[in-house]
């Protein structure tokens, strides 16, 4: 009889997705902490996970709770300052698309979560709703609102980059992904 997979297979299969989700929700250092805490908690609970459970949704649920904990702890630590601190120090990890990462970081928490769980983890809205609370429709709306806001911010950034890169050649298109 074959039972549950070795936990190593769970890390191999879902580690990258959980890391993307953590990075969409938190700063790089906090994302690493949340990833580690997620998998340690998952390892502890793994023997009791029902055999037919959706492992990815289970992991994202744990990551969601860890991210909420980390965010709350950071808020408690935060000291009010007159000037906003250097945003770069606490911004999501820079990929090729730093502008998009910045735009995601600027979204309200519900929108950010809905986008991370639906678009990065690939969970259906019913699962997203089970994690963040509320209805599937509400989760869908939060994601749609977030996507609309991203599109505005992202295309704004792309346009700014295009004008920066524009050195007399007016053929510079507005193709997404070329604003590196």
């Amino acid at each position, binding site marked *: 009889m074959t039972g549950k997979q070795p936990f190593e297979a769970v890390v191999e299969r879902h580690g990258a997705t959980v890391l993307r989700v953590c990075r*969409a929700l938190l700063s790089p250092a906090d994302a690493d902490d949340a990833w580690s805490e997620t998998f*340690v908690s998952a390892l502890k609970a793994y023997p009791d996970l029902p055999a037919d459970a959706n492992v990815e949704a289970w992991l994202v649920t744990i990551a969601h709770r860890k991210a909420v904990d980390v965010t709350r702890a950071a808020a408690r630590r935060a000291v009010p300052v007159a000037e906003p601190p250097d945003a770069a120090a606490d911004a999501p990890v820079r990929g090729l698309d730093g502008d*998009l990462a910045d735009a995601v970081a600027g979204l309200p928490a519900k929108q950010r979560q809905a986008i991370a769980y639906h678009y990065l983890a690939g969970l259906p809205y019913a699962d997203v709703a089970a994690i963040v609370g509320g209805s599937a429709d509400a989760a869908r709306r939060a994601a749609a609102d977030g996507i609309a806001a991203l599109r505005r911010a992202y295309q704004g950034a792309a346009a700014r980059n295009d004008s920066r890169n524009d050195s007399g050649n007016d053929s510079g298109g507005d193709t997404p992904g070329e604003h590196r």
Partner: protein
Amino acid sequence: MNTDDLARDLMRAFPDRAGDLTRLHHRLAAAAERDGVLDVAYRAIDSPVGPLLLAATEAGLVRVAFASEDHDAVLQSLADRISPRVLRAPGRLEAPARELGEYFDGQRRDFDLPLDWRLSAGFRRAVLNRLPDIGYGHTASYAAVAQLAGNPKAVRAAASACASNPLPVVVPCHRVIYSDGRIGRYRGGPDAKRTLLTLESAA
């Protein structure tokens, strides 16, 4: 820009670099060990008899497996029989890996490692427990081993105990052969058994 493009760009904006995951995996293995939830740690090593899988519980080395056994299948059976909390965690296997390396280099004649015998029981375990009595570079017959284990008539049972040894190489079932000189069954195949006997007779 459609939503698919944006979804693709989102994946790129939050990358999962392999190096990051490697680093995080090390951290996870260390935290699991510290919190006492690393039920089975494993790693693979290269050897003259092919890649060997080494697995250990908190009690000690529990399984050595040849590539011919299919390491993934062995890990699944450890998950089924011991615990699904199985993680690649080389730290716990440091001493077994080092001693096996010394053995294959001809620098070590016996092993000084804590062993977890839980995958073997009854007469089979009694047989395996006596195998270290057969010294490095020597061989014994299945009949002699049956006698050592306290049941001279159980020659076939002794042979099947050797063939199902969960800790080959470390527990030297390769030193047990037929009294007529035939090499007998071995988990790693007869070639691996011959390689080990040749190694021990040369050192």
